[in-house]
């Protein structure tokens, strides 16, 4: 499949401050991409460049073969057929829900417009609220109206700027699954921006981790979690600690917990000093193991315990342990490594 959206070597700066730094990614039609990063990393600026609200300094943006942005030239926002769901929804307060959704359909015939509005309100579960005003709705309902409004004109690309950040946690996880289903049903290509990793993983086919205007990795959520390309990505995605080790073979690394061999070769020379990433689910509790670590603190999560364990060297590792293994703080417990991928970075 060829790329539908091509974001090619794009840079953007506010006066002297570089906000987006030679960033590239592509998206296939119908896919949902997500830019993940802490606030100020430039992810919202990328959306604004895509929407046509910001000019770019270098590179190009192409959608369906059409060039949208070049330095010094850009297709105006209203001519891009790119929809956007804003962080604060930006619903039009003087219009009813129905009129908000119909707003982008001014060129459609009346009958088609009414049909489209009705089917979208139905899709987002707000049938019957067409005559309400935005201020009469709850936050979650307003969010759905914003989505319906943006989807109504069948945009070629939909942008979602932190769409769930104003909602409470329960609603957030429910809506993110729902929105993904709706986007897939409408076969909409979309880009989502968030700082919430769970949201990114729940919604997106491809996730990009951004830091200081740079895209560090652009990959499927699974790859991102299990094969992070850099230490920053490994740290940013999920929990984990780094343990020093020495490469002992093509796919083997020796650490203070013992030697571990992965299925995939590591790109290091034998004898090289590295740091190995240990996710909480990589560290298994095993009473039979001779490797011991002392329970330093624990958090009960219902289905499991989240232990922080101190190794004999004083270094700490995290472990997720089934909740019937309840050990008091201070007790040494046996541990063993269980990994599919060995993730290591050169020691610094």
């Amino acid at each position: 499949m060829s790329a539908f959206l091509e974001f090619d070597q794009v840079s953007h700066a506010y006066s002297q401050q570089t906000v987006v730094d030679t960033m590239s990614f592509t998206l296939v039609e119908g896919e949902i991409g997500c830019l993940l990063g802490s606030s100020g990393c430039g992810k919202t600026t990328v959306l604004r460049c895509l929407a046509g609200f910001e000019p770019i300094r270098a590179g190009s943006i192409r959608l369906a073969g059409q060039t949208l942005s070049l330095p010094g030239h850009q297709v105006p926002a209203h001519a891009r057929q790119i929809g956007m769901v804003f962080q604060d929804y930006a619903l039009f307060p003087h219009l009813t829900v129905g009129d908000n959704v119909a707003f982008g359909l001014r060129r459609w015939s009346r009958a088609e417009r009414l049909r489209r509005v009705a089917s979208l309100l139905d899709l987002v579960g707000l049938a019957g609220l067409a005559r309400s005003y935005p201020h009469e709705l709850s936050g979650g309902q307003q969010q759905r109206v914003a989505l319906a409004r943006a989807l109504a004109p069948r945009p070629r690309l939909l942008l979602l700027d932190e769409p769930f950040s104003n909602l409470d946690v329960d609603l957030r996880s429910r809506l993110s699954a729902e929105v993904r289903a709706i986007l897939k049903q409408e076969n909409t290509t979309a880009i989502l921006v968030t700082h919430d990793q769970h949201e990114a993983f729940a919604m997106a086919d491809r996730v990009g981790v951004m830091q200081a205007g740079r895209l560090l990795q652009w990959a499927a959520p699974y790859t991102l979690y299990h094969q992070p390309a850099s230490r920053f990505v490994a740290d940013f995605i999920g929990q984990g600690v780094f343990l020093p080790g020495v490469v002992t073979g093509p796919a083997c690394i020796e650490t203070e917990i013992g030697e571990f061999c992965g299925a995939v070769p590591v790109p290091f020379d034998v004898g090289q000093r590295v740091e190995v990433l240990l996710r909480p689910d990589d560290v298994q509790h095993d009473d039979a193991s001779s490797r011991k670590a002392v329970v330093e603190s624990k958090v009960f999560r219902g289905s499991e315990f989240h232990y922080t364990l101190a190794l004999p060297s004083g270094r700490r590792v995290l472990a997720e342990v089934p909740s019937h293994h309840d050990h008091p703080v201070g007790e040494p417990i046996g541990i063993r490594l269980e990994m599919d991928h060995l993730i290591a970075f050169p020691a610094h």
Partner: protein
Amino acid sequence: MDFSQIVPALPALMEGMVVTLKLLVMAVLGGVVLGTFIALGRLSSNAFLSGLAKAYVNYFRSIPLLLVIIWFYLAVPMLLNWITGDFVPVGAFASCLVAFMMFEAAYYAEIVRAGIQAISRGQVNAAYALGMTYGQAMRLVILPQAFRKMLPLLLQQSIILFQDTSLVYAVGLMDFLNSARSRGDILGQPHEFLIFAGAVYFVISYCASYIVKRLQKRLVV
């Protein structure tokens, strides 16, 4: 004091009031429309346009209204003569109307500008993302919201204009105050007629202000 002559004079005074109200309504409508364009000019990213609009507003806010009325009374016929080459009689009403529209537009422009700036930038972007041009975004999204917010201020300004229309006295237009004054002079009862006129201005302005305050409270909720 003898107010008995007021009642027979009412039809004539009513005619004066019609002139006052006609002038008021037309000046408000024209002033708001012109003021809106000036406000859009001031908010424009085009430096020339915004500079021009700013100069307009500052100029008209820095000179007395009476001067504008007299000046337009003299200048409008001259200007038309210069443009058309003919001598066109303009009349006090038309020249006063133009004077009020242009003068008030400077004040309305500032109200409209504040109203537009009070609408969040996201609303314009939302309209752009739905395929609207700048003009459509203004007309369909920003101005409807802005006018709703600034309606009390626009009305308050219009009540002041209602009182200021009496300045047309200077060019001899027979508005309400001028009618009352001339009637009082003819009948030798200037005090009674001026007191009556003052009472009418007070009642109308006070009631209008009260209604605007009520409206303001309703719009806040």
